[in-house]
Structure formats: C-alpha cells, structure tokens
C-alpha cells in the first residue's frame, strides 16, 4: 500500500496545494489596499520643433522637448505583495487630429528595497515626444501625470495615477536652431 511512489505522490500533492493556498492568501491580503499617492511635477523648459519623423512617416511632425522637475515619495506603496513599481510620466493632450493622445516621456523601474523617494531637477525626457501630426505648437493644454503599474508577487496588476498633475502649454513658434 505505502509504496515509495504513493508516498511521493502524496507529498507532492500536499506541497502543491499548500503553495496554491498560500499564493491565494497572499493575493487576498492585498486585494483592497489603497495604493494612491501624490507627486509634484513641474516643467522647466518647453520647446517645439517641426522636423521629419524618419521612424514613422518621414513627413514633418511636431516634436516637443521638455525638461521637468519631479518629486514623489512612493515608499508607502510597497508592501509584501509588491515586487516592482513601473513608473511612467505621461503627456496627455488633444489636437485637431486626435481627440486624445498619450505619450510616455519617461519611465523608471523601482524594485522592492530600492530607494522609492524621487527628487529630480531639470530632467530630460527619456523618449521622444512626437505628435503624429502638427498638434503640439501652440497647444495650450498638455497634462503631465505620473502613474505607476504595480507588479505583485501574485495578484492584480493595477495602473494608478498619482494625484498632482501639471498643465503646461507649448510655445506658439517653432524653434529652428539647436535647442
């Protein structure tokens, strides 16, 4: 009756069901946690150019450049079921062509245990701020928000926008020289 095979089978089955149960408890324990947080964002220098976008259409499109300040403390967001935060700074605007455009300008990965207090001054954006037409020049309502995607050990993958956004406008003239 109690052969090596049946003993092994019982052991493996018990271990697996225990692991599954613990994983589920871990998911339940952080299901209703409030992950909201705040950030302070400000733009320092804003410039718009009109240059051909060789990565896409080769037509002349608007390309924005900006440097920004960012302060946020995300230490409280971490708990035992947060493996990683994926932070991203989004520029959101409407133009004549698009009712809504969103462009990620900068992102950062924070693993648990790493420093989660951000204080950046005059940071350059990490990615190009291309519009898919000419919707940036003189655009008076571009919103910058900091959001984060929570990667758990097991569980849901929520995307949360930090409170505290910054609205800025692009200049009415293109910059021709090197900015």
């Amino acid at each position: 009756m109690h052969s090596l095979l049946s003993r092994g089978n019982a052991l493996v089955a018990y271990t697996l069901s225990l692991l599954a149960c613990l994983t589920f408890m871990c998911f339940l324990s952080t299901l209703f946690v409030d992950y909201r947080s705040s950030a302070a964002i400000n733009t320092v220098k804003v410039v718009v150019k009109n240059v051909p976008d060789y990565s896409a259409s080769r037509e002349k499109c608007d390309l924005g450049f900006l440097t920004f300040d960012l302060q946020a403390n995300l230490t409280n967001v971490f708990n035992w079921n947060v493996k990683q935060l994926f932070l991203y700074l989004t520029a959101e605007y409407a133009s004549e062509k698009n009712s809504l455009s969103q462009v990620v300008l900068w992102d950062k990965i924070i693993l648990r245990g790493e420093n989660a207090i951000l204080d950046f001054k005059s940071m350059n954006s990490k990615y190009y701020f291309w519009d898919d037409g000419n919707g940036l020049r003189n655009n008076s309502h571009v919103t910058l928000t900091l959001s984060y995607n929570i990667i758990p050990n097991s569980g849901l993958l929520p995307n949360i926008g930090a409170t505290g956004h910054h609205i800025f406008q692009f200049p009415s003239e293109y910059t021709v020289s090197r900015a």
Partner: protein
Amino acid sequence: MIQSALDELRRMNKRQFIYQCLSFGMIVSSALMIWKGLMVVTGSESPIVVVLSGSMEPAFHRGDLLFLTNFESDPVRVGEIVVFKVEGRDIPIVHRVVKLHEGRNGTVKFLTKGDNNSVDDRGLYAPGQLWLTSKDMVGRARGFLPHVGMVTIYMNEYPKFKCAVLAALGLYVLVHRE
C-alpha cells in the same frame, strides 16, 4: 507498472470499460468548457497566456502566467500591458503601451515597447506597420501568477515529455476505479 495497468484494463468488463471512457471524455470536455467559458467572460480569445521571453523583465520572467481581459467598453490607455499578435508571427507578444492616439473619427492606434528593451516595437511589427490597433490585440494583462507556466514551456520544448505526461494521465483515468 504499465503491465499492471494493462492487466487491470483486461480484467474490466465491457460496461466498466465504456464507463471509464465516458468519464475520460467528461474530463476533456469540462476542461474545454472552462476554457471557452473564460473566453466568453473575459472577451479575450486567449484568457490565459504564458510569458515566453524576457523582454518584460524584471516584471515578468519566462514561465509566468498572465490573466487577460479584453472588454470593448474599456479603452486602452498608455502604461497598460497588452498582449498582441503580429501578422506572420505565431506567438503573441506581451509588451507595454507607450504611445497612443485616439482619432476624431474613433480610430485608436498605439505603439508598444518591452520594459527590458531599449527601443519600441516597430521593428517587431509586420513590415511597414507603424501602429497597433484594437484588432491586433489579444487582451490586457490584469492578473499575474509566477512560474506556473514553466510546465507548458517544458512540454513545448520537450515533446517527448509532453507525450509521456499525457499518456500517463490518460492511462490513469482509464484504469483508475473509484
């Protein structure tokens, strides 16, 4: 072991054998029903996917399991992790949306990038394709379970292992009596 299983099979009478075959069929069809039911509930053609590459590290590693939804009423936004298919590639890709334009006429186009890749995905798309649209999308990642998908990766990499597992399970169900 196989010998004893075959002996067991030989000892059954006809009715018993048919009953075992039916219960085997029940297991297969209920698994299929669960999968198809999930497809209806989530709106995604593939509600559960296994991460196959390291392009989203350190968030997702090879073998992690993702649960997807694909509701039409819920628009795509930047920062979400989407699973999409590209023409000419069989394997769906799991990457993050980094750019999105919603046109005045309701069309949505978006660009993706893997967290662990330094450039966006235009090089992975079909030749000449610059944007993804909602018809390329399989779903959006909503839930995460680590490592569980490694079993399917091993099965795909070692077809003999897959055959052995399936044969053993099938034989067990056919032979096992309550």
